[in-house]
Structure formats: C-alpha cells, structure tokens
C-alpha cells in the first residue's frame, strides 16, 4: 500500500571543502491516496526531501522507493520520464509558463511530456480547469490572473497527467487566507476524487491542519509523526 518508502535516507551537499548534511537517516513510509505534510523551520530539509521524492535529486545514501522505483538508480533522462508519468509538482510561486495561457499551461505536460492525443488532451484539460474552478480564465495569461487563480491552475497542471503523487512545496505561502483555503480544498477534493497522494512541505498552520499525517523535520532529521491534524 505504501507509495513512498524511505529507509536511512541521507542527503549531503559539498560546497568546496564544506560538507552539509541536509537530511540525516530518514526512515518513513507514505501510503497511497494520503494527504501528508512535512513541516519544520526554514533549512530543516523539507524542500530537499521533496526534491528527492520527486526524483529531481538523488539521495547520497539510503534507499528511497517511490511507486516501486528506486530513485537512486535513475539517470537524468530516466528521472525526467519518471517525473513525467508519476509526479505532479505545485510550487510556492506557481511557476506557470508566462507565454502560455491558463489552458496551455495545463495542457503542457500532456502535450510535451506525455504526448497525449488532441481530443483526450482537450477533454482532460477542460475537465480539470472546471474542477478547480478556473474554466472561465482559460484564455488568460498568468500575468492576467490572481495568485489564487494561478495556484489553482498549477494544481490542475499537476493533476492533469493523473500522477500517483503530487508534491507541493509551500503551496499556500503566497496566497491570502481565502485563496489558501480554496486551493487546499481543491487539492483535498482531487485526492478524494482521483486517489492521488499529496505531499506538502509547509509551515502554514492551515496546511498542517488539512494534512492527515504530519512529519516534523528539524535540522534534516525526522523528529516526529502526527496523525489527523494533531501536529504541534
């Protein structure tokens, strides 16, 4: 049932002669279709961990299985292919492509990553834009949209490929309270509908409250695991 299995996971960066251990001996599992948050202060290793889970980076030691794939064994192309079929990303600053409309941004991974046929593409993009409540903004460019609209489009883009896993790095950090709640409820609804696993990194209490499982990180170490919004 576990989608993510980490065992003795360590990530070390070396800058010149300085060696920094960003993650130290992490061991945890995350089940499919769960709504999980990693919390911790800045520099605690949240983003590094999400990068490893998303195959953007490789662990220094330890084992990390995501959807039965050993992340450490993936080269650049294999990692890209893995991300394209398994992972959706939501970023703090939305990271929409500015020269593409809302529709085209959501369509991008289907078109240029998964090479889905036009008719199916159109149906999936329109359905998701509708589901996240921005169908009316489909022809607008990112600079014509509000922060909440941008993030909902980013959610649609992350989900349009039907990934098993969505990684969201501080997804509400740049949103006001209302938009943050809207985005979180959208993601939860998507999880309920599609069975997608959502993993967040955050220090936003509203996100923590939404999470079913909260892992606490400090200085790259896993300090605790709280269930059903009981994190403190």
């Amino acid at each position: 049932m576990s989608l993510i299995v980490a065992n003795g996971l360590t990530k070390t960066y070396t800058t010149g002669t300085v060696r920094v251990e960003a993650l130290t001996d992490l061991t945890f599992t995350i089940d499919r279709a769960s709504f999980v948050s990693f919390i911790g202060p800045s520099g605690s290793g949240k983003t590094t961990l999400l990068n490893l889970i998303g195959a953007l980076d490789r662990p220094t030691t330890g084992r990390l299985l995501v959807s039965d794939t050993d992340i450490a064994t993936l080269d650049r192309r294999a990692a890209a292919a893995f991300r394209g079929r398994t992972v959706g990303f939501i970023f703090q600053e939305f990271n929409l492509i500015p020269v593409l409309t809302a529709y085209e941004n959501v369509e991008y991974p289907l078109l240029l990553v998964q090479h889905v046929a036009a008719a199916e593409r159109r149906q999936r993009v329109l359905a998701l834009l509708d589901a996240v409540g921005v169908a009316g903004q489909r022809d607008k460019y990112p600079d014509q949209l509000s922060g909440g609209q941008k993030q909902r489009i980013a959610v649609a883009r992350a989900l349009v490929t039907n990934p098993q896993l969505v990684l969201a790095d501080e997804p509400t950090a740049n949103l006001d309270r209302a938009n943050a709640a809207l985005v979180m409820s959208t993601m939860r609804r998507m999880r309920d509908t599609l069975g997608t696993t959502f993993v967040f990194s955050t220090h936003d209490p509203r996100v923590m409250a939404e999470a079913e499982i909260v892992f606490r990180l400090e200085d790259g170490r896993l300090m605790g695991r709280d269930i059903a919004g009981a994190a403190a």
Partner: protein
Amino acid sequence: MTTLTKIAVRNLTRYRRRSVLTASLIAIGVIAVVVFEAAAGAFTGLMIGQMTDAMLGHLQIHRRGYVASIDNLPLTMMLTPAEVAIVEKTLRAEPEVESYSRRLKFGGMFSNYTETTAIRLNGVYPDEEVRTLPLLASRIRQGTARLTKGEIVIPDLLATGMGVTLGDTVVVIATNRDGSVNAAQLTVSGVLANITSPSGRDGYVHIEDAMTLLRMEAPEISEIAVRLKDFDRLDRAAGAVRTAVQQANTSGQAGEMEVHTWEGLSPFYNVAVLINILALSATLGLVAIVLVSVMNVMLMSVYERVKEIGTMAAMGTMPRTILGMFVIEGLSLGVLGILIGDAVAAAAILVINAVGPTFNFGRETGLVLSPHVDLGQMLIISAVVLLVAVVGTVQPAFKASRMDPVEALRHG
C-alpha cells in the same frame, strides 16, 4: 514541433525590443552582403563581359610558351596551318563552342607620314572576329569593325595622339620572322575605344594584309580566340578543348599547344578574385554578427528563464525537448532577420537598377551598374545565416537542456 515553435515565437515577442534589435542586426548584415554581392557581381560581370565579348573571347589557344612571351608578340611561336586545321576541326566538333577567330598578332611602327609610333596589331578574318566578339562593334567609336583588305582599325588613343581620322592613309612597318622589314599603306576604316587591359589598345588589320606585310605565304596564327555558347560552362568547355589539343599533340599531329581561359589572360581576373575575397569577408562578417548576436540573445534568454526551465524539467520535459525549444527560438530569430533582410535587399537592388548608377573604370567611362536579384545567392546567404543562427543557439540551448532542475528551481 508546432507547440515548441509557438512557445519560441511567443518568447521572442515577450522580449520584443531585444528580438527586434537582434533581428534588425541580422537583417542589416543580410542586406549588406546581398547588396554588396549583387553590386560586385554586376561589376565583375560587366567587366568580364567587356573583356571576353569585346577583346579576349572566352578562351584562347596558342603554341606553348606564347602567352608567356606575349608582350613581345613573337612571330617564332606560331601555330602552323596544319595545326590550325586540327584545332579548327576540334572546335567545330565541340558542342560548347559558338565561334572562333584566328589571329595573327604582330608589332610594328605606325606612321602618318609626319610622325611614327609603335603599334600592336591583330591580323584577323573580320567576320570571324565579329562573330567571336559580339561587343567589338560597340567599341567602334568611328567607322566599322568589318574592315576589308587595305584597311586598318586603330585604337582611339593612337588616333588622337597622331591626329589621324577615318579615311586617312597611314603606313604600317613591320619586321618579319627573318628580320626583313616591310611596309604597307593602309586606310583608317575605324577607331576603336580602349579597354583597360594589356591588349585593349591593339589595332586590327585584315589577316591577308598582315600576311603580306610579314611576307607569309600561308597564314600562320598566333592565337585562336574562342567564344562559347554558355559562359557558365567555361571550365568544362576549356577542359574538353584542352584534352582534344593534347591528344593531337600526343598523336604527333601537332606541336604542343596551350588552352587559356580569360582568367589566365586578363589581370582583371585578380581584381575579380579580390572582389570575391571581399564578398567572402562580408559574408564572414555577417556570420560573426549573426553568431554573436544570436548567441548573446539566447544566452540572455536562458539566464532569464532559468526557473521556467527548471519548471519544465520538473514536469518531466525531456532535455532534447528543452534543447529543441531554444534552438527553434534562435532559428526563428534568424528567419525573421533573413525575411526582413532579403526583402529590403531585393528592394534596394531594384532601386539601384532603376536609378542605374554609372561609374568609370580606367579609361572606360559611363559604365552602368545593373545588379540583379540573384535568388540562388540569396538562398545560399539565407542558408548560411540560418545555419549560423542554429550554431549560435546550440550552446545556450544545450546549457538549458543540461540544467540541474533543483538549481534551476532555486533560481530567483
């Protein structure tokens, strides 16, 4: 591909000012090269045409060593009648040959009874000469090029200097091969404009008068000037004629002969080569402009879009797709510059043609420059620019495609 092109074009319009500036720079380079090459081509074409159609012919056949001694106009290095017959047979059989003209070249003294000066003369069969040099008639300032026996056509410098006009009687004195001197009284039937070339100030007499003057019983020929049907097939035709005369020599039918194209006979060839080098330099300048400007703009484009590249990579976009996107962007910039450049260059050439600027070259005045739009040349220049635009884009595009997504996403 369509989507990548769409993204590329939108990114170019996103940085409109920069894109327009770069495309303009490419366009200016294209305009400069296309117009320069058209003008240079028109100039060299005009000059080569003047030389080949009014004086040299496209190629010439001589006894071996004659051209090296041509300043002395030696009478000891002539083609015998038998050899001339072999050459004529070869030329008549060669499909590339339009016509030929046999010439007996010699030097002598020219006298108007009060003054005497040196003169270089061609003894020719007038019909052959006029057929082989279609622009010869245009060089005639007074009289006719179709001289008959007892007539002489003289260069205008000589006519002016000696105060000789049409119908005047003059005397030509020449020394023959055996060293004896002979003279002939001739009537001036034509005055010929000079051409800026070593033999551009030669006069003409009928070949039979030349034979009489030089006490030849049978016509011995110094050179045979040949006109081809298609000047563009010069090398092929010269090769064929050369092979034929070599075979005649090998079989013992004739002595050693040489076939020279106009390039080996006229110093203007060096000017033409220099002009070609200048055109090549201009093209290299264009290459540098395109390379530097496209590489610069694409590097800026990559640095400004690091986070965007990271996002694309995070979504699973393959490195080759990212590479393709940037290459198409650079290519689009090149295409834009080419389209503007070619259009403006074509318009400029048409305007130059309409204006018809004139120029002087040596003693030739009022030559009209008529450049034309050479689509083949434009295509070559455009292809070079496109290729260079791609080369200029490859490094930045490769950089983008190899970017570490974690580092890229961290980029502010």
